[in-house]
């Protein structure tokens, strides 16, 4: 069976959930081979095996000393050597860039931000949710090795019936000068806290202008009771109430969690573009006409400063 390359997302040896989703999707196309850049592959291999990785290509951490291009060169080399049937990456900003450069190198087409992936006789068929979720399209790659970036939380991860061997194989690539042109000279970690990462989280609780001040604790407390990530509308970010990297929407992050709770968010089309594919949507808003209610599975017309704390207390009480 043809190999399907899956670029692994990992932190400190721990495989991210989206990678298990990609391996699950890769099994529909062929035999998954994981591609691990950096340290920690020994710890991560068991998890990759569970989701069907037959091989784990392990490349040195030095690839990450430069922006994106080295990983694209590595994947291009592996895809050519293994005659891969497809290359899958998660649809994060950086991985989409890798996908773009890789597709140029392979002379292939690239599909980004895919929300569902099927396979028919002619290969992978990708579903997109476009224009703020109002239109659904299906697309395919007609030339070259399909390069596909899949949105986290779009595919239900399932362990393989027979686990893969996850045989580790050290690989490297002779980097071109062009790939070394943009040098990472420092990595700055900003306060992250204990909360799950926004794009990966199963539950997201977001606050908007209705929160009313930079005191976001009403949102954070509810999020923490659910083990959720915190998000924010652009109005809240622009007001300086919550940091930029938590913005959900058109020009922020796209999330697709099992549960999205919107507190004091009106539901503008640009906000919806970032959360419309969430499985369950709950909204609290004092305006019965707020468009967010049009897509809510459950909505409360009321003051979020009353409703959210009551909900938080009730969740904590039931624990």
């Amino acid at each position, binding site marked *: 069976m043809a190999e399907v390359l899956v670029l692994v997302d990992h932190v400190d040896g721990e495989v991210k959930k989206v990678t298990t989703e990609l391996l699950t999707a890769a099994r529909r196309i062929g035999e998954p081979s994981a591609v691990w850049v950096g340290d920690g592959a020994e710890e991560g291999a068991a998890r990759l095996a569970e989701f069907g990785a037959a091989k784990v290509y392990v490349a040195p951490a030095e690839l990450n000393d430069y922006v*994106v291009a080295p990983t694209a060169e590595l994947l291009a080399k592996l895809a050519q050597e293994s005659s891969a049937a497809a290359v899958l990456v998660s649809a994060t900003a950086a991985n989409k860039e890798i996908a773009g450069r890789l597709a140029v190198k392979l002379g292939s087409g690239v599909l980004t931000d895919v929300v569902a992936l099927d396979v028919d006789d002619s290969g992978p068929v990708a579903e997109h949710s476009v224009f703020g979720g109002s239109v659904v399209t299906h697309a395919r790659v007609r030339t070259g090795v399909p390069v596909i970036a899949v949105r986290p939380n779009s595919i239900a991860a399932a362990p393989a019936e027979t686990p893969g061997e996850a045989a580790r194989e050290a690989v490297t690539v002779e980097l071109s000068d062009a790939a070394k042109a943009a040098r990472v000279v420092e990595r700055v970690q900003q306060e992250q806290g204990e909360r799950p990462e926004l794009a990966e989280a199963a539950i997201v609780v977001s606050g908007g202008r209705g929160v009313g001040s930079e005191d976001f604790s009403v949102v954070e407390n509810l999020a923490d009771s659910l083990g959720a990530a915190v998000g924010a509308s652009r109005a809240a970010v622009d007001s300086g109430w919550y940091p930029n990297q938590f913005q959900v929407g058109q020009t922020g992050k796209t999330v697709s969690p099992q549960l999205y709770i919107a507190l004091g968010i009106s539901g503008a089309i640009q906000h919806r573009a970032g959360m419309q594919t969430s499985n369950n949507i709950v909204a609290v808003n004092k305006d019965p006409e707020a468009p967010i209610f049009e897509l809510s599975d459950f909505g409360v017309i009321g003051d979020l400063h009353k409703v959210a704390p009551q909900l938080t207390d009730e969740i904590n009480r039931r624990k």
Partner: protein
Amino acid sequence: MNIVVLVKQVPDTATERKLRPEDHTLDRAASDGVINELDEYAIEEALLLKEKHGGEVTVLSMGPDQATDSIRKALSMGADKAVHLNDDALHGSDALQTAYALSKALGTLEFDVVVLGSESTDARTGIVGAALAEYLGLPQLTLAGKVDIDGGSIRIQRQADYGYDVVEAELPAVVSVVEKINEPRYPSFKLIMAAKKKPVQKLTLADVGIEVPGDPADAEVGLAAAATEVVDAAAAPPRAAGTIVKDEGEGGLKVAEFLSAKKFI
């Protein structure tokens, strides 16, 4: 310093956006065209670089005739001149073909920095900057939240989930910007008037060295030659109507019941 800023005209996100049923490409007649929002940030950054280091800002846009409106708007923000790549054979180009065509157009210009948005609001692939760097063989300084140029060197803060990376390179380079980088200016009346007289150079594919063969499938750009293909498009099925309740003192408890029924708590 010569700065080229890439500007894409996109349908206004506030209007109902559509694809054309016949070929699943953007229906430009259905909505008003506006400058892609992040490109306004790119223009602002280009103008700030010019104010600091001198030189000239050139707008480069690829698109049909109506893209002229967005080009004028970019000029009215303060850019000096514009280049408009406009050719029917470009219709339906995918993201990589777009990056390729832009790279060829850039080949006709002199520049130290190319500034662009990190993502468009219509197609949202977010790959044009990376693909452009690949085609041009130039350093990729994308997702920049801050840009500093010192002589022939450039340094940016590249936004990441964990914070940011500091990235350095030598010029010329490709820089894409994120929203937090600056606050775009409003065109003044004086600049709007002045913009009407600023030069806009029209380029066809032949002008940038891209051949248009008899069979469109053999071309390097355009729908028939694209490596990707949209096979169908349909309005998203409406979400089933949810339960909406008014808070009469128990709103939080009611949400808890809903979450419990769905096994979230």
